[in-house]
């Protein structure tokens, strides 16, 4: 046995598939292997819109990364292979991977299509010490799917997640319980959960560059600066994280967005697009039996500056009409000053599947006719595709099918 795992410490694994979408493409199309490969929007010779979903490792050498505008990716490496995502296929392989993980421990929390936490605290009798479990999982994934994943092993979720990222691809990193603080200290603060660009800047200005710098600050100081969240940050920096691997995570949000073929000045056209997005989102929510209370408009201007604006309602909704009218109002309330729009999207959070629907006396919202219409529309579209029927308001506009993407995240 390797270095000892304290008997009362939890064993948490974080498994993160390497460049997942790109890896699946390489798996299915052997000729792609070893060449720079980008899954995402159509680059259209450098004039394409939309963003990179995943770049494989050869492509990353050119500085291409997820969420980068596809045109920029093209500029960096025009000879890369660009493919559109085949999400049904990725989801199929994802299910295989998750099934493999479940065979090691039933306590699994899937974070996204290619990422999961596993609580293997009770599995040592079956599979040996934590390092062995991690190795066996990696081997099983490789032999059964042909793909590689990186695994982090630690006594809590946060450290496991940090660890899995350290030796990507095909990594296996173990942080022994008790050594968390030394493990984290040299890492940049951006590795802390919840520290984005702006917070990092703020912390940098105060002379905090590594996680160790934060751990050495007085707890009260951070609380003073960031409130309760500061305390959380400080605890993370010391490797303290007691959250459990939640088997039944609830989805936190659902959204739909569209990147325009060209940056758009015609705000009426943007509003029509919101209409369509609301329609699609509503359908997707109805299929999943979800309703939400917070509706968020996402807007990306020319130049990539992105804004969101949310409204929280007193009731749970999922009808297209409400989603649309809120999004349009929020769009109109934004200071636009003749700027061009690159992307719009609508998200719904604070989701709920329980509870019945509050019925209405009148109005378009949940009138029986409208409800019937909505469900009929949904049914038709589900059967025959989006093009079969549409709202009259959308008809005269020549909306080309733009690069649209779906996001369903269940991140913590």
């Amino acid at each position, binding site marked *: 046995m390797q270095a000892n795992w304290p008997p009362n410490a939890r064993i948490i694994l974080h498994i993160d598939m390497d460049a997942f979408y790109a890896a699946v493409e390489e798996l299915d199309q052997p000729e792609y292997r070893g060449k720079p490969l980008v899954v995402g929007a159509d680059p259209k010779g450098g004039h394409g819109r939309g963003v990179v979903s995943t770049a494989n490792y050869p492509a990353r050498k050119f500085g291409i990364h997820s969420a980068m505008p596809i045109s920029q990716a093209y500029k960096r490496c025009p000879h890369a292979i660009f493919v559109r995502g085949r999400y049904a296929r990725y989801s199929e392989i994802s299910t295989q991977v998750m099934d493999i993980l479940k065979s090691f421990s039933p306590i699994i929390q899937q974070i996204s299509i290619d990422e999961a936490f596993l609580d293997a605290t009770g599995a040592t009798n079956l599979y040996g010490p934590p390092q062995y479990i991690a190795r066996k999982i990696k081997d099983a994934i490789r032999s059964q799917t042909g793909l590689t994943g990186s695994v982090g092993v630690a006594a809590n979720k946060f450290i496991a997640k940090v660890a899995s990222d350290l030796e990507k691809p095909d990594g296996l990193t173990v942080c022994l319980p008790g050594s968390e603080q030394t493990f984290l200290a040299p890492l940049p603060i951006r590795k802390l959960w919840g520290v984005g660009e702006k917070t990092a800047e703020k912390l940098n200005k105060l002379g905090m560059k590594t996680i160790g710098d934060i751990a050495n600050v007085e707890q009260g100081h951070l609380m003073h600066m960031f409130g309760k969240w500061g305390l959380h940050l400080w605890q993370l920096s010391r490797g303290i994280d007691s959250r459990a691997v939640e088997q039944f995570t609830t989805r936190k949000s659902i959204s739909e967005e569209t990147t325009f073929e060209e940056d758009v000045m015609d705000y009426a056209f943007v509003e029509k697009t919101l209409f369509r997005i609301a329609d699609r989102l509503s359908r997707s929510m109805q299929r999943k039996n979800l309703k939400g*209370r917070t509706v968020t408009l996402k807007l990306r201007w020319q130049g990539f500056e992105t804004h969101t604006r949310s409204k929280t309602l*007193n*009731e*749970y909704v999922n009808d297209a009409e409400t989603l649309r*009218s*809120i999004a349009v*109002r929020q769009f109109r309330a934004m200071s636009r000053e003749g700027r061009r729009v690159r992307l719009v999207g609508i998200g719904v959070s604070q989701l*709920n599947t*329980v*509870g*019945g*629907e*509050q*019925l*209405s*006396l*009148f*109005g378009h*919202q949940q009138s029986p006719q409208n409800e019937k219409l909505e469900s009929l529309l949904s049914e038709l579209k589900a059967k025959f595709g989006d093009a079969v029927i549409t709202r009259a308001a959308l008809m005269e506009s020549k909306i080309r099918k733009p690069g649209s993407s779906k996001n369903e995240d269940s991140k913590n």
Partner: protein
Amino acid sequence: MKFSVNKADLFASLQKIIGVIPTKTTIPILSNILLTLEDSKLKLAATDLEISMDTACDVSDAEKGALTIPARKFFEIIRELPDLPVTVETDERNHVKVKTEKGVYKLIGESEDEFPRIDVEDADFEFYLSSEKLNRMIDKTIFAVSTDELRTTLMGVYMQILANELRMIATDGHRLAKITHTAFPGDEKTGSVVLPTKALQLVQRNIDDEERIKVSVGDNHVTFTCGDTKIYSKLIEGQFPNYERVIPLDNQLKMYVNKDLLISAVRRVSIFSNQYTHQIKFALSPSSLMIQAEDVEVGGEAQESLPVDYTGDKLEIGYNAAYLLDILRHLEYEEILFNLKDATSAAVITPSEQDADEDLLMLLMPIRLNDSI
């Protein structure tokens, strides 16, 4: 301008008018009150451009003049003064001195020319109501208005002036409150308007009891006049929905229930309902009403039953407890009547016996129960 006044008198006028001052505004002058002094009468005016209010207060040692003064600060200093005579003096630079025997307080005012003039067109017609009646009608409806900015007409109270009836109606689409004043001495002139809630709240707060109130209705404005106090308000534009269409006439099932018993049972049970949906379930059977709630997300459940006068078949209906309690709290009667049809139709809730000169009615739409679909 110069005047002396009792603190209490001045404060009473300021207290009325301060409610008009917008809490946030991009037009600084709206944070001021216009003071105009003529013939020993101090007139006070405030506006947020939608709603304006005038009131007046008797003063002595008066020298005429006019200016505007920062409302909040003026209000606060007068409020904090002991009940003593106060002298207010202004100079040509619009500096204001407030003096009592305790001390001197200086404020910077502005010229009255800066203050917006609100044009109110002539009224098409007017009528009188006792303040008691008007306040009651506002109270019975205003709680049910919508806060949904997407449907502006529902954000106000609809007033229908008919030949022999005055009606006020409010709804947010899920519940509806309607009160009819049946002893209304109207005339041939009829009409209907949507009144903004802020104006009605000002009326409720500022119109003293026992007085006759003149209500003047024009195309775009309504004015409430009571003695020296006048409240003008723009009307909400747009078509109020056809509410009569949604009041069911064929609800055959009747449940008579003691209102206080029902309120306390609903309050207890609803503690166990989901904090957002407030969903509770009414399970009716002959002579008994069972109220249930459970929060699937958080866990916990409750049920309670109470005696009712009901002879229909078994029936289960979901309601939002918060909406239901709102309605019950506005029915100050011992016994009330639920007229029901089925699990997805509106309940008509009324006092079991109406007062002599009025008709009071509330509607509540159910929550569709998951297991009843």
